C-alpha cells in the first residue's frame, strides 16, 4: 500500500472507532435493560444492514463507467462536506464553545430513557443507535474505498469494530477514556486533506493543482491541523465565561 492508502485506511480506522464507541455505549445501556442476547441481536441486525449498504454501493461505484476524475471530484466534494462538519465540531469543542461528548452522560441518559420503554422499544433504540453511527462509517468506507481500495477500507472499519467490541466487553462499561474529540479532530484533518486533494484535482487536474503529488496530502493535513488548533485557541481566549453551546 502507498502512503496515501495507509493514511486513508488509518483515517477510516480512527473515524470508525469514534462511531463504534458511541454505538457501544447505546448497546451496553440496552443490554443492561433487555439482556445481552437481544441487544447484540439488534446491533448485529444494524451491522448487517451497513455491510449490505457497503457491498451494494461499493459494487455500484466500481461498475460505474464514469470518468475516474469526475468520480474522484464528486467524492472529494462529499469528503469536504463531511470533513468540515467534523472539523468545526472538534474545533468548537477544543475552544469550549460546545461541550465535549460525554459517554458516561450518554449512557445515563439512554438508561433513563430505557426505564420508560418496553423490550421492543429498547431493541429499536439499540438498532437505530448502531445504524446511525454505522451510516457515517459506511459513507467514509465508500468514499475513501473507491480511490484507495474497498478491501482496505472495509477491513479498517471492521478491525476498528473488533477492537472497540474487545475493549468494551472486557471493561463492561462506557468507553469514557477514549479521547473522542482529539480523534475526531485528527480524522477531520485527514478527510479534509483527501477532500481538498481530489476535489481541486478533479476540477483543475491533479498534476496542475498539486505538483508535489501525494506528499501534498501530508502538507494539507499539517495545514488543517495547525490552523484548527490556532483557531480553537483564539476562540477559547475570546470566549465569554461559561458560554457553552448546545450539546451536539
Amino acid at each position: 500500500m502507498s502512503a496515501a492508502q495507509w493514511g486513508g485506511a488509518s483515517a477510516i480506522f480512527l473515524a470508525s472507532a469514534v462511531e463504534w464507541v458511541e454505538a457501544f455505549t447505546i448497546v451496553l445501556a440496552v443490554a443492561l435493560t433487555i439482556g445481552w442476547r437481544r441487544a447484540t441481536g439488534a446491533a448485529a441486525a444494524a451491522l448487517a444492514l451497513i455491510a449490505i449498504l457497503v457491498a451494494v454501493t461499493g459494487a455500484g461505484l466500481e461498475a460505474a463507467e464514469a470518468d475516474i476524475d469526475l468520480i474522484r471530484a464528486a467524492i472529494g466534494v462529499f469528503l469536504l462536506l463531511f470533513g468540515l462538519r467534523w472539523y468545526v465540531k472538534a474545533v468548537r469543542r477544543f475552544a469550549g464553545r460546545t461541550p465535549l461528548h460525554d459517554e458516561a452522560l450518554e449512557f445515563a441518559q439512554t438508561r433513563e430513557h430505557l426505564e420508560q420503554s418496553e423490550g421492543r422499544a429498547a431493541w429499536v433504540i439499540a438498532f437505530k443507535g448502531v445504524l446511525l453511527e454505522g451510516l457515517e462509517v459506511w459513507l467514509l468506507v465508500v468514499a475513501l474505498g473507491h480511490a484507495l481500495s474497498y478491501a482496505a477500507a472495509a477491513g479498517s472499519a471492521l478491525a476498528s469494530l473488533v477492537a472497540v467490541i474487545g475493549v468494551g466487553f472486557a471493561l463492561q462499561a462506557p468507553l469514557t477514556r477514549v479521547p473522542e474529540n482529539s480523534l475526531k479532530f485528527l480524522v477531520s484533518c485527514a478527510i479534509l486533506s483527501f477532500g481538498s486533494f481530489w476535489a481541486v484535482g478533479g476540477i483543475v487536474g491533479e498534476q496542475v493543482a498539486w505538483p508535489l503529488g501525494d506528499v501534498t496530502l501530508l502538507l494539507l493535513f499539517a495545514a488543517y491541523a495547525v490552523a484548527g488548533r490556532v483557531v480553537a485557541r483564539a476562540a477559547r481566549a475570546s470566549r465569554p465565561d461559561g458560554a457553552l453551546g448546545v450539546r451536539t
Partner: protein
Amino acid sequence: MRKVLQLIFGDPRNVTSVALALLAAYGLSRVAPAASGALLVLILIAAAAIQAF
C-alpha cells in the same frame, strides 16, 4: 431520511462554506490554477474559524 441527509451534507452553513470554497477555487483556476488548491484550503479554514467563534 432527514438525519441521513444531515449526516452527508451537514447544516446549510456547512454546504454554503464548501460551495463558496469550490466556486472560488474554480474561478481562480481559470487564471492561476496552481493557486486554486491553496485558496480552497484558506476559505475552508476561514469558514471553520467563523463557525468556531
